[in-house]
């Protein structure tokens, strides 16, 4: 694959029109006002029939689960992967926070329920998350365990009769302040495993309003303002086994850790597409600015230092686009990226997006520092690509560990 097909370009154009009509006019409200992104996301879903596609996908996955087919559901291969990534790219040209809020709910929260849940749990929580009728959060990170999320996790699940009592706090939780459904990771504390780092990780599903569950207000952040991020506080939250994904500890033995790691790979692939959106937008704006901004009587594009910046942006765009194409081809071949491959892709793309966006601010000069010219927002937003879904430093360790294990 070296270019988008005609149908993929048609999807791109349709999403681009939606972004121009529905997102750009309210980007200030989303970024600096009090408008959460969920109304726009739901309109995006209904406009393009994504809710209908989600229902069909849910029915197929449920049938497979009931039939006992443990293999990952085929999701239409290339067409489905490309459709998702094109939407991510186009939305990220304007408002990456929307993609973060949408992706965490439909890919991470819903994805975990659909993969690890029983058929009853899929029906109870999965469908509404996939259609975005309900907002989902995926709660794993804690204040003292970001990159060490699984080992250093302090949230506990203590057995209590047929159920559990959950305690602990989570932070940096996307959609945390508004989530209707929360996928919550906690360590089983039954006293049989002495070392807390080695205790089994269990995954629970919580609903907004449960006794003992508190959802904070949104944090103030450097960027990604349109993606509400917050904390969760659990104090003796009592849950039945029906809220333990898989509904059995034996089924969940090791599964909590594995489902989290699967999601790491999914997240990392998505960030390549998010990076491409930011890079494409910055490059388009920079080329136009370089042609029209006059200094000493000529366009600044005539100056070689500006040309160098543009050329470096184009190199980054081509490389990141090629990585996105490679991901689509991998999926279409029925394969998936290894964690190390996804890490390598995420590391490169996140750094490229951040560098391109900061160079765009520099190229625009004083105007670049002003919000009207949009690139400063993209620069602030892109920085988080190097931090969330695994920091640059963690990606390096995953890549190196894989190389050295061969």
């Amino acid at each position, binding site marked *: 694959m070296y270019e988008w097909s005609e*149908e993929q370009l*048609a*999807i791109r154009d349709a999403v681009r*029109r*939606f972004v121009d009509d529905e997102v750009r006019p309210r980007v200030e409200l989303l970024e600096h006002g009090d408008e959460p992104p969920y109304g726009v996301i739901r309109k995006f879903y209904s406009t393009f029939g994504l809710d*209908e596609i989600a229902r069909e996908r849910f029915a197929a996955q449920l049938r497979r689960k009931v039939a006992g087919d443990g293999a990952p559901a085929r999701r239409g291969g290339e067409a489905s992967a490309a459709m998702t990534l094109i939407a991510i790219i186009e939305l990220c040209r304007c408002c990456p926070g929307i993609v973060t809020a949408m992706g965490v709910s439909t890919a991470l929260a819903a994805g975990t329920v659909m993969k690890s849940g029983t058929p009853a749990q899929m029906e109870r929580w999965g469908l509404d998350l996939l259609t975005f009728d309900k907002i989902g959060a995926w709660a794993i990170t804690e204040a003292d365990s970001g990159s060490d999320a699984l080992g250093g996790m302090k949230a506990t699940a203590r057995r209590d009769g047929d159920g559990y009592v959950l305690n602990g706090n989570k932070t940096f939780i996307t959609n945390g302040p508004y989530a209707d459904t929360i996928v919550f990771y906690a360590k089983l504390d039954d006293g049989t495993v002495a070392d807390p780092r080695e205790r089994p990780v269990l995954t629970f599903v919580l609903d907004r309003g449960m006794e003992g569950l508190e959802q904070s207000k949104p944090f103030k952040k450097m960027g990604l303002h349109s993606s509400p991020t917050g904390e969760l506080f659990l104090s003796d939250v009592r849950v039945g086994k029906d809220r333990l994904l898989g509904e059995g500890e034996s089924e969940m033995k090791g599964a909590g850790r594995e489902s989290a790691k699967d999601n790491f790979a999914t997240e990392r692939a998505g960030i390549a597409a998010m990076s491409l959106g930011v890079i494409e937008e910055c490059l388009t704006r920079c080329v136009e600015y370089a042609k029209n901004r006059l200094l000493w009587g000529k366009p600044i594009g005539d100056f070689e230092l500006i040309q160098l910046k543009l050329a470096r942006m184009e190199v980054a765009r081509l490389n990141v686009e090629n990585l996105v194409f490679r991901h689509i081809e991998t999926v279409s071949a029925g394969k998936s990226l290894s964690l190390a491959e996804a890490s390598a892709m995420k590391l490169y793309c996140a750094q490229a997006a951040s560098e391109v966006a900061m160079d765009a601010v520099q190229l625009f000069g004083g105007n670049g520092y002003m919000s009207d010219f949009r690139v400063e927002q993209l620069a602030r937003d892109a920085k988080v690509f190097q931090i969330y879904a695994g920091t640059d430093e963690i990606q390096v360790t995953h890549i190196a560990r894989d190389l050295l294990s061969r």
Partner: protein
Amino acid sequence: MQAMNVVVCVKQIPDPAAPASLDESTHTLDRTGKLILDDSDSYGVEMALQLADTEAGDEVVLVSMAPNGEVSGLRTALAMGAAKALLVSDPVLAGTDALGTAKVLAAAIRRVEPDLVIAATESTDGYTGTLPVQVAEILGLPSVTFAKSISIDGSNVKVERQTEAGYDEVESPMPVVVTVTAGVVEPRYPSFKGIMAAKSKPVETLTVADLGLDASEVGVSGSRQEIVDVSEAESRSGGEIVVDEGDGADRIVAFLEQIKVI
């Protein structure tokens, strides 16, 4: 009620956002590259789809003409929900004028046996605004222009026809040709599934000979109109800047009265 065939005449035009060029000899627009659905036709497509959506079995058929076999614009309308398309494509069509185009489209429309033919009031590249009524005349059908809404009542069509003062309520037996004013409905976005399905929807391509027309009736040779010269539009003057010294509102009103806007 019997299923209804709604034909929408759609034009594929060079992307207005891309730089356009004119053929030096004929002064006509260069149409050799990728063409897109004329934005003014998207309203007719939407109106036809809304009418077809109300009755099961009703079908929207696109009819178009393009010299180079281009279907990109048709795929856009098919993705919105039209069932199929009929494209007349033939090298001899290059340079065809409005009447020649009307002859070609009328011949194509006749094959579909429509109950209703919808067209835009005018295209956004040619702006002659004459084609729909020419098609109606050739087909021997009544025509209603400037529709802001269309409804079906038995074998009749009811149209709210825009006028300077408001709108007229017009009723006509079907089949009928109706032109739709831009902006009267909100054209739907094609769904992702619609876009993927559009590539497998039928697009029948016909030549001028297939329609039983003589090549001399179309193209440059068949044209009764000729563009003899094209010149650049005068650039707009800077306008008049009025400084508000307490009488700003009065001066605005006076200006609007002078140009007969109020």
